[in-house]
């Protein structure tokens, strides 16, 4: 049966993965330089998702606040922003992502931006509204373990991705598991992430055939879930926060780095890139 199975996620398996080289001065970038001794202190990471359970024991006191973005077709901007000082999580998924980020960057401040709910029709606009709020409210790293495949929003999300870049906000996005376009993960300024089968949170790879650029753990990983719970789960959704956590560490240690520079540091430190330690 196994030979019939598709394997779009195979780009990070041992037999396919290509060894790459960090040329010139990039070869001198080490993990120790990039994030050694870092904790993510002073870095604001926004989780745009189903919410974050602020009281979850795996999150300590990392969650500093949040907002709920609701769809409202009557308003010009199509959404309504509601302050949520003590964030909650509808599903558990955002809490799972926050838990991974907190594990890697324990001193980073986490903000919940809840963009999911009962109203599916306005979902892409809620998502865009959450992205805009994060960019305008000085977040440094955004974890986007969700996407839209609706072509009509290509331009809107592209504009937001550019705005984020020019404001020095790094977008880390999970790619879709099905071979279909997904935004904003396909834009060049976004760090797009898929899952590999490893368990070590610091093991990640660079894919020399983008648009999927990075591979991080996301298969059978244990994550925090709703109501103080936890479970084992699989999905590219859980790969993205591993890279977001590392990006928070890098940003905390080197606040002057721009999104493309952080991406370059990640490249130089990837496990399949020679020159990294």
């Amino acid at each position, binding site marked *: 049966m196994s030979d019939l199975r598709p394997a779009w996620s195979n780009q990070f398996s041992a037999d396919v993965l290509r060894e790459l080289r960090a040329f010139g001065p990039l070869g001198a970038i080490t993990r120790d330089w990039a994030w050694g001794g870092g904790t993510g202190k002073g870095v604001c990471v926004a989780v745009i998702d189903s919410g974050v359970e602020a009281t979850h024991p795996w999150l300590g006191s990392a969650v500093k606040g949040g907002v709920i973005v609701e769809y409202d077709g009557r308003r010009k901007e199509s959404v309504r922003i509601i302050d949520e000082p003590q964030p909650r999580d509808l599903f558990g998924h955002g809490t799972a992502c926050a838990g991974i980020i907190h594990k890697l960057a324990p001193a980073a401040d986490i903000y919940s931006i809840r963009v999911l709910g009962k109203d599916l029709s306005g979902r892409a606009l809620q998502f865009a509204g959450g992205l805009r709020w994060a960019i305008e409210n000085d977040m440094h790293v955004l974890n986007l373990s969700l996407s839209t495949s609706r072509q009509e929003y290509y331009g809107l999300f592209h504009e937001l991705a550019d705005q984020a870049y020019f404001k020095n906000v790094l977008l880390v996005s999970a790619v*879709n598991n099905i071979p279909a376009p997904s935004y904003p993960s396909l834009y060049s300024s976004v760090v797009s992430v898929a899952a590999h089968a490893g368990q070590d949170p610091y093991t990640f790879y660079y894919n020399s055939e983008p648009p999927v650029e990075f591979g991080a753990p996301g298969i*059978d990983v244990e994550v925090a879930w709703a109501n103080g719970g936890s479970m*084992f*789960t699989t999905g590219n*959704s859980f790969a993205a926060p591993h890279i977001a956590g590392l990006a928070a560490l890098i940003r905390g240690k080197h606040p002057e780095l721009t999104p493309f520079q952080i991406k370059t540091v990640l490249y130089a430190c990837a496990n399949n890139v020679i020159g990294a330690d």
Partner: protein
Amino acid sequence: MNSAPSLEAQLRELVLAITATSRALLPLSGDQLLQTIVQAAASIFGAAAASIALVDESAGEMVFRVAYGQGSDSVVGMRIPLDQGIAGYVANTGQPIAVSNVQTDPRFARDTAERTGYVPRSILAMPLVAEDRVIGVMEVLDKLSAPSFGMQDMELLGLFARQAALAIHQSQHLDALNEILVQNIRALVTPETAVDLERVLGEKDAAKHDDVLEIARVFQSIAGLGERERKACLKIMQVFEEYGTTHLSAYE
């Protein structure tokens, strides 16, 4: 004029029959096809159960349409809110997810699984996407040969989900077409239009309705060939529609 009352009576009868049995004018094989898809998915993954739930946007809920395997009797027809559970998450994000040790998610166990009397250990949930919209969620439960579903299972289920989404989408189109046909027939037999019955049931209009049915049948059989054929069919219809509105109206 003599033939008109009997035709009217026939139409009335037809409308009554449709209303009474909730049966569609056009053949609906959608559910049977979906049932086959979930059954095939369950056996190919070696899963204990599989199901498809469809989004009901106006109610903010999902409704289980077909199911196979353990707990399937109690799950069909069950409604769950769109802002809860694993299926709700998948419908919200359009992202597939695989979960093992489901029981550790207390909300899942209490709200959904207990109502069906069957609490799975592992779940693989995949969105059903048609024209960029999530129209439902397909789930397979409890892989028998392994403790959890892997990434390749996820990608394979994606292929099944594509077929299922296509089948659902087509059957929804047919439902809409049915509704239009029924409305037309109903309009023919209501008292307000009865005075005009002679004109309404004239040779030309009767032919037009026959044509609509015939077009629907042809369209359905071509659409059944696949996505590309369906799109080609739609394009042809659109070209005719455009031609009709710009050229033909001048001659009426």
